[in-house]
């Protein structure tokens, strides 16, 4: 509980608000350059590493709440818990020093992506009847169903095709940003 308090300073609260906007703005970039990625958790991972797991979790959770509130992606709130765990994992990897080398950050991203895929699948399978409402991923799910997998495992399989790669690239982007970030700002986010 002490860590929890320490993570929420005025600075980190302002950072979380901006990070949520980064999540939404970052989600635009793949579309602008034509990449089949989401990149909608850059801000979440950044807060996790800069501030800590609790703040990262809160950023992920509230991002999805705001996606719902603004009507940009109304079903997002169903995945708010998964988004929170992504932020918490980023924070744990950050505290373990995994963001000091690019390859460790990449491995951390892969692990986070696998966890996200496994946790998202039951939500897609049981809440949304095994689909996500986006044509590309649903075609992949259909292909797995056709090969004989059941609803849950088709969604796990679809998730593991996209999430680990997406989170690995997100983690690498954050690693690159951390290199460019002034020391002073890094210290400020840790409440020093």
């Amino acid at each position, binding site marked *: 509980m002490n860590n929890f308090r320490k993570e*929420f*300073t*005025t*600075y980190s*609260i*302002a*950072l*979380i*608000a*901006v990070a*949520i*906007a*980064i999540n*939404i*703005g*970052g989600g*635009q*970039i793949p579309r*602008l*350059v*034509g*990449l089949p990625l989401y*990149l909608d958790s*850059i*801000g979440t991972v*950044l807060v996790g590493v800069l501030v800590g797991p609790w703040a990262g979790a*809160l950023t992920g959770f*509230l991002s999805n*709440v*705001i996606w*719902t*509130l*603004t*009507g940009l992606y*109304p*079903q997002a*709130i169903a995945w708010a818990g998964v988004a929170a765990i992504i932020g918490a994992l980023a924070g744990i990897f950050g505290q373990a020093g995994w963001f000091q080398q690019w390859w460790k950050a990449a491995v951390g991203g892969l692990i986070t992506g696998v966890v996200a895929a496994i946790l998202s699948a039951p939500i897609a399978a049981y809440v*949304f*009847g*095994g*689909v*996500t*409402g*986006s*044509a590309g991923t*649903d075609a992949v*799910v*259909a292909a797995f*169903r*056709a090969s004989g997998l059941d*609803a849950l495992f088709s969604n796990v399989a679809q998730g593991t095709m996209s999430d680990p790669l997406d989170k690995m*690239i997100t983690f690498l*982007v954050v690693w*690159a*940003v951390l290199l*460019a*970030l002034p020391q002073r*700002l890094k210290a*400020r986010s840790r409440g020093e």
Partner: protein
Amino acid sequence: MRGNLLYLDKESSLHQLHPLSKLAFTFFFLICAAALPGLDWLLAAYFFLLLPLAGWGQVTAPFLRSSWAVITPFVISLSLIQGFFTGGETVLFSLGRFAFTFEGWLAGLTVAARILVALGGALLLTLTTRPDALMQALTQRGLPNSLAYIVLSSIQIFPRFQDRAQLILQAQQARGLETGGNLVRRLKLLVPLSGPLILSSIVDVEERAMALEARGFSRPGRKTSLLVLRDSQAQRLLRFVLLLLGLGLITLRVWTLFQ
């Protein structure tokens, strides 16, 4: 609040309800979406409860538009996936070794109708409630001020970020950055695009934090608000009735499951 929200400024009686009353409706419809037994009940809830409520709030057209935009891809995906893979007796048509059954299709449509009812409940709230009013109602019931600040300020700043992402792309193109090309080339584009977006916004954070501190943000104690929320005895009763109805639906559902 800028035009990036679903919220529509109207003078209807639904708009003037206390945010918690509308939140109670949202939760009630979430329970309906999960607990109503079949397609007929779900569609009845949408057309005979949600749609009249949207009409009462003078938001029927945007309500239908948003419902349609979200539900259409779900109806298509669910019809195909459940129709082919759920299985059943009545085969409507076959593609190779896969049969499209009526029972599967019905199961798919039922899930889509559940999503529609839940979505309708959320739309009713977001179309007719200012986010700041909702957050104030929640802070009065114990939600920390800092959470309300995060939600409201990020709603205000993200349209600027969407513009900024576009602007950075144009600026980098003006400097000769080539967009398009093969997959590796496009992956490399992520750095010159996301780097400036993130770094410039983190520099903003310090200014925001100082502006907050200058206004006594972390000061303990009660804070006064410009916005006054009106509540009434009738609305308290309404929320209580909705709660009872919701609990009743859950009990009924659990009871029929164990029958």
